[in-house]
């Protein structure tokens, strides 16, 4: 069951070769045995999982099952799950039992998927190493002294260690693609508006987008079919039909024009990663794709713009955590101000506090134009770079990160160097485009991620391009020792 694709699991379930109960039990046992080394789960919902599996088995027995019925999934603890703690990696929500389900959770439930638990993450999805979690850092299965990336580090580590066949993530500045790269798995961040944000706890509303981790592009396609789609409860959800992503996986790449952004291949890029990308290019050339150098000149400005926009939105989004209606409340507040200040300071960790402060400043009187509006103008420049590029190429290819996973604790005291690790991913969020990371090699035992960026709502094309590569290579089949 370890190395089976979701398609294979689905077929086995439909053919009654295994039951969902067995499959769920299998993963729950792996979590129990192996997760203490990784800390990838905040909550394991064993009983609910077994109940859901039973229900799935009944549906399978009655022939009422869909393609994902009975398939286990891990949910990032940012998605609200009815009756289950939804902490967002924060002390603030350590006692928050969500009274409702996020739209994507409903979709998965309706499809008969089985939730194994809620995965660890950087607090409120702010971080690139998963070291900002109230529940402790997550370890990279390829080397437990290294970070798994963030903010969806728990989901990435869980999938890499085969504790779940698929897991959700969210990506505001690279939080799916970067941990996918660092953990050697496949991850997709769809176009802004493709996945409902309702019930996904907001970090930066105009950048946040839910997505998935799995072992392969094909697995991603299977699950994205269910996750994607219009939601009337989300004003920023796009009412655009969702194609069956599995239908186009095997389309030919002949004549595909792939863009290589000059700015992604500077001296800052780790040599081994650069070489791995060059090797991948040869694979694609063999498949009939052509390569074209393109310019994304405002890439370097995307990080400063992001570190204004995201904190600004976060400072407002996180104002609701005030100790009044839910979440952490300080002991014996002496007055209203004390209630607010102590509840919030006790509930939020350092990085979240830092970003709230930056964002508050960037929006404050006298600085709004210089910071916030300026950043949103830069954002247009960044988006325009992509718009121009997609006039001459179909897909953009490059590294996901400038370097492989770093050691736990290595960058915690230097926020800026941490921020710079998102250099290749952030621009994609600013423009709202879909992006993927797929495994493309190793350096010193750590995985290398290759990023594919598509035009808006071109997820099918991205998955097709990724799948074509995975048919030619076996990087995505490698698993970390001991898992």
């Amino acid at each position, binding site marked *: 069951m370890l190395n089976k694709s979701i398609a294979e699991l689905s077929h086995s379930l439909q053919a009654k070769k295994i039951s969902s109960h067995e499959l769920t039990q299998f993963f729950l046992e792996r979590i129990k045995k192996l997760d203490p080394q990784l800390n990838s789960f905040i909550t394991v919902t064993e009983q609910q999982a077994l109940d859901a599996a039973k229900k799935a088995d009944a549906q399978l027995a009655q022939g009422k099952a869909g393609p994902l019925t009975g398939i286990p999934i891990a949910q990032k603890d940012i998605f609200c799950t009815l009756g289950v703690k939804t902490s967002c990696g924060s002390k603030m929500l350590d006692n928050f039992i969500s009274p409702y389900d996020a739209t994507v959770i409903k979709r998965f439930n309706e499809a008969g998927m089985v939730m194994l638990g809620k995965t660890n993450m950087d607090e409120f999805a702010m971080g690139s190493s998963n070291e900002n979690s109230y529940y402790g850092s997550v370890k990279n299965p390829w080397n437990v002294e290294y970070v798994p990336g963030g903010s969806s580090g728990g989901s990435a580590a869980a999938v890499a260690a085969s504790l779940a066949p698929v897991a959700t993530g969210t990506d505001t500045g690279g939080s799916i693609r970067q941990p996918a790269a660092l953990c050697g798995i496949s991850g997709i961040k769809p176009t802004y508006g493709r996945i409902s944000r309702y019930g996904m706890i*907001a970090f930066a509303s105009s950048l946040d987008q839910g997505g998935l981790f799995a072992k392969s592009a094909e697995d991603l396609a299977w699950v994205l079919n269910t996750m994607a789609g219009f939601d009337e409860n989300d004003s920023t959800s796009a009412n655009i039909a969702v194609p069956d992503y599995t239908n186009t996986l095997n389309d030919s790449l002949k004549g595909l024009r792939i863009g290589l952004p000059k700015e992604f291949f500077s001296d800052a890029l780790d040599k081994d990663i650069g070489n791995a990308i060059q090797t991948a290019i040869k694979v694609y050339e063999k498949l009939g794709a052509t390569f074209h150098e393109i310019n994304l000149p405002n890439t370097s400005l995307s990080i400063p713009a992001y570190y204004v926009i995201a904190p600004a*939105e976060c400072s*407002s989004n996180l104002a609701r955590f005030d100790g009044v209606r839910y979440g952490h409340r300080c002991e014996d507040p002496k007055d209203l101000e004390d209630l607010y200040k102590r509840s919030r300071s006790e509930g939020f960790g350092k990085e979240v506090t830092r970003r709230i402060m930056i964002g508050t400043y960037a929006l404050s009187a006298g600085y709004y134009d210089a910071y916030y509006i300026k950043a949103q103008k830069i954002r247009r420049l960044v988006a325009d770079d992509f718009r121009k590029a997609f006039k001459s190429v179909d897909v953009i290819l490059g590294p996901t990160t400038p370097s492989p996973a770093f050691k736990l604790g290595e960058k915690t005291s230097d926020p800026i160097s941490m921020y710079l690790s998102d250099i290749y991913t952030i621009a994609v969020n600013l423009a709202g485009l879909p992006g993927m990371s797929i495994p493309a090699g190793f350096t010193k035992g750590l995985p290398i991620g290759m990023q594919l960026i598509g035009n808006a709502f071109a997820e099918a094309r991205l998955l097709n391009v990724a799948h074509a590569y995975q048919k030619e290579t076996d990087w995505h089949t490698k698993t970390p020792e001991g898992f």
Partner: protein
Amino acid sequence: MEWEIVIGLEVHAQLSTQSKIFSGASTAFGAEPNTQACAIDLGFPGVLPVLNAEVVNMAIKLGLGINAEIAKRSVFARKNYFYPDLPKGYQISQFELPVVGKGYLDILLDDGTTKRIGITRAHLEEDAGKSLHEDFNGMSGIDLNRAGTPLLEIVSEPDMRSAKEAIAYLKTLHSLVRYLGICDGNMQEGSFRCDANVSLRRKGDSKFGTRTELKNINSFRFVERAIMYEVERQMAILEDGGKINQETRLYDSAKNETRPMRSKEEANDYRYFPDPDLLPLLITEEQIAKVRSELPELPQQKHQRFKEVYGLSAYDATVLVSSRAMADYFETAVAASGNQAKLTANWVTGELSAALNKSDMEITSSPVSAEELGKLVLRIADNTISGKIAKTIFESLWNKEGDVDHIIEKQGLKQVTDSSAIEALIEKILAANPQQVADYRSGKDKLFGFFVGQAMKESGGKLNPKQLNDLLKEKLTSGS
């Protein structure tokens, strides 16, 4: 020194939708605390707003009603501040790009002239909840039922020069929003709230003085009192050579005074920015045209029509169109009265309004229906009853004792118009009062009233007054 009063008003009109501006929770007033606050209103983690279509239609209606430009593109922004009745830590409002732009309202002044009051803008926003200050062991209770109720904030230019003008503007606007059916106008329940910006300047100065903002004014009467108080207060300071602090002041209706609100050490910094959970509100010409075609007749048009079609005075027309319900009542009554417009107007603005006021009732729940009142007027006009008897019948109608004709019949109130019957009655009275007849005939003209009184007393007031007068005069004269 002569001072000029400068007043601008900000009105918060609660829009009378079924559901909230960004959620599907009910807006009904008076529910148990927090039973109409859904996850979105409570600002639960992960929830998102979706705009109510009816709110947009209502904003367009107001825009058309105040002759304003309606923005093709407006933007919702977040106003960030912490307060327990504000669950998200920000209020969704409109800041730089409001849905309704510059417009105006014409108000009728006491001297019969009209004055144009500019309206700066009107924007959509969500209401906050309520803090209940009763003591829960030293704590306050928060009810978030009202959180997320749609509001239109309508901001006037500082064009009013007296408390009376401010009231006239408020009443005109109040009537308009009710005509448009976008707000129930209930000031006690807070559906129509008003803040007043008041300043003084020397007569002839072109620069405005420093203003104060008066809050918490929940009736027309209090608006006037609060402004008067504030004007006196500012005048006393200025006359003493003092300076006005720009500040927000609460009106205390019990003490009839304004006092500064406890303010924090530094001014609020609301950090407005476009709400990333909402996209720009786009309104098309077609949408505006559609709303325009469905617009009811507005007070000003109705006023004009009442004067032209019914020949009413400006005063009567103003009173009758002050609410759509009263205007509708009047028109129904006129139709039933055989088009006795002036007489009907008198009855609606006189007897009926007084009775409604006395029992603190709305015209919509009047015990006397418009049809019955019209019929009553008809019976006066066709001489079935006298105006005096009509008042008695009105009382019976009010007490639900039956319909007009039934009451006339049952109580035998029908006016006597038969000349021979009247003549017989006159003869009887003259015969019974020979001395008075003699005195009259010898020149005591004033005794005429005595005979009228006697006749009316005898008949129970049912004689047609004109006929009585004519016949009595004839008898008294002919007999000499």
